[in-house]
């Protein structure tokens, strides 16, 4: 290595911290705290300005009567907006739609993800190709995904109608997005297509960590395929599945783009989730006070899920205390 003894003044006048570290007992190093925080400072400043401040500011706005229709009024109303929210039909309807949507998306993503991962964990001609194809739904921007499915579901010229009619499964073309039940299912299916690859990748990685000897031992003990899944695969997979479950639940609650393009919350309010209701209240009704009360409600729900996620990671020992 031809590294010259250049005289760059970074990071301190006398010695580099890493060199000091070599001399100090390696695990305790409070004297390096200053340098460590210095390295974290740019990231911390960015996050405080662009995440911490906005979320607190959103909380502050949610305690006020504030509408862009009358931008001069900014009156403190305490928890008034939250009371209004809890008393409104829109909130409970949106909560119920969110539960249905999230439940269906997560159930489908996990079961499809598990099946595909179990399949791809085996070797067969073309398995590498299928793994590559997984990247297609994963890489598609949600807006384009919504556009693509809007078209597939189209009531006059859509591919789904064309396919079902030519297979004889459906007599007449129908408007999949104009009926409240089928609109929700259509939205779920479109979102699932976008989310499944991530689940497959995470589950597949967990499957590949299972030591092969465990299966040999189980085989010697005379276990069948189901018993092997139940007693060997599943226990090793449980945590990965839990992580997928939590991450996908949060992703489903956050879903926005696909709703915007595909159903815009309709017909009626049949696909209006809490996230979409937040958007409507804020940017259609221009009621920033109530809108931010919605935003905080969504945040609290998501962050409680995040706490769960941390606990799973903690138990795996991935965040060292």
């Amino acid at each position, binding site marked *: 290595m031809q*590294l010259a003894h*250049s005289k*760059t003044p*970074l990071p301190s006048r006398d010695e580099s*911290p*890493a060199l000091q570290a*070599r001399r100090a007992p390696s695990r*305790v190093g409070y004297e*390096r*705290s200053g*340098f*460590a925080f210095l*390295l*974290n400072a*740019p990231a*911390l400043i*960015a*996050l405080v300005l*662009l*995440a*911490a*401040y906005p979320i607190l500011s*959103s909380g502050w706005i949610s305690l006020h009567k504030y509408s862009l229709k009358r931008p001069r009024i900014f009156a403190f109303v305490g928890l008034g907006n939250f009371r209004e929210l809890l008393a409104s039909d829109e909130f409970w309807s949106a909560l119920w739609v969110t539960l249905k949507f999230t439940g269906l998306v997560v159930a489908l993503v996990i079961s499809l993800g598990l099946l595909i991962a179990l*399949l791809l964990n085996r070797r*067969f*001609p*073309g*398995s590498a190709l*299928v793994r590559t194809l997984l990247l297609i739904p994963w*890489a*598609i*921007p*949600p*807006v*384009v995904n919504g*556009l693509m*499915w*809007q*078209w597939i579901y189209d009531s*006059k*010229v859509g591919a789904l109608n*064309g396919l079902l009619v030519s297979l004889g499964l459906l007599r007449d073309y129908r408007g999949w997005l104009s009926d409240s039940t089928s609109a929700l299912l259509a939205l779920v299916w479109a979102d699932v297509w976008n989310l499944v690859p991530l689940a497959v990748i*995470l589950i597949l990685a967990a499957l590949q960590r299972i030591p092969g000897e465990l299966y040999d031992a189980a085989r010697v003990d005379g276990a069948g395929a189901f018993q092997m899944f139940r007693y060997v695969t599943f226990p090793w997979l449980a945590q990965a599945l839990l*992580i997928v479950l939590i*991450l996908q639940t*949060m992703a489903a609650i*956050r879903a*926005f*783009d696909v709703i*915007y*393009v595909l159903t815009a919350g309709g017909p009626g309010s049949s696909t209006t989730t809490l996230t979409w209701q937040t958007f409507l209240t*804020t940017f259609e009704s221009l009621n920033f006070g109530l809108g931010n009360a919605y*935003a905080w409600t*969504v945040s609290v729900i*998501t*962050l409680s899920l995040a706490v769960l*996620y941390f606990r799973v*990671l903690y138990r*795996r020992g*991935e965040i060292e205390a």
Partner: protein
Amino acid sequence: MTLTGSHRAKTIGLTLAGMLVALYLLAPFSWLVLTSFMHERDVLSVPPQWIPQDATLENYSIFFDPTGTRAIVGARAAAQMLPGMLNSLIAALGTALLNLVLGTLAGYSLARFDFRGRTTLLLLYLGSRMLPGIALIVPLYLMMKTYGLLDNLVALIVTYLTFTLPFTIWLLRNYFQAVPRSLEEAALIDGCNWLQMVTKILLPAAAPGLVAAGMFAFMTAWNDYLFAVILTSTMAAKTLPVVVAGFATDVTTERTLMASGGVMAVIPPLVLAFIFQRLIVQGLTSGATKD
């Protein structure tokens, strides 16, 4: 090696299942791609034309010459495609670059130093990754308005930074931890200072992590719609997803044009994904858990 009958049957079963999965992953997207090569009148046919009988490149060439041969209702939208793509590219590259700089600094300190408040920082980073975008949008909008940054790519870049940086830090920390400490120590003994050690030893050793992190940041920024639609209003900063969604909600736009616009929006992330397939799979796994 000879396969027994049951072995062969199993392989055939697996292959068939694999084909089914491939069809599921490929069919909706192929429909979009095929449509983008059709004439408008063929798209409207019932039953649908599965394979374009009279394929055309018109829906793509119009982006380069919006006022040219084909005067159509979607001409204005078509004219926005390339500028939108350029805006997306600037926003995504800017986000990726900032991520790598800030993420390397923070990720390194979390990987190597054992300092008071380290766990708190880790949890803080993880936590901010979980915030729903819809909860931040109003204050960010008001903030950008105050500073005159509405309809400006800078506003998009710093906003995307918030959403990508925690993941980048987490990911880079995992990659840096995997670089043997002895490499760094050897460099320091050879007389490198800290900065030289980082640029000449650590970063090259963690290069796959940097590529993966940069790519995830790029893709998140490229794919975003929510912030782009709220924070931008003209072609000064409108990104591709906003232009494309504009097609979708504008009933007069030709469908074939929507399809080719959608395909254009997919190409950059898809190409990246195919080139860096192994790194993506590694990075996604490492980012969600830690291995």
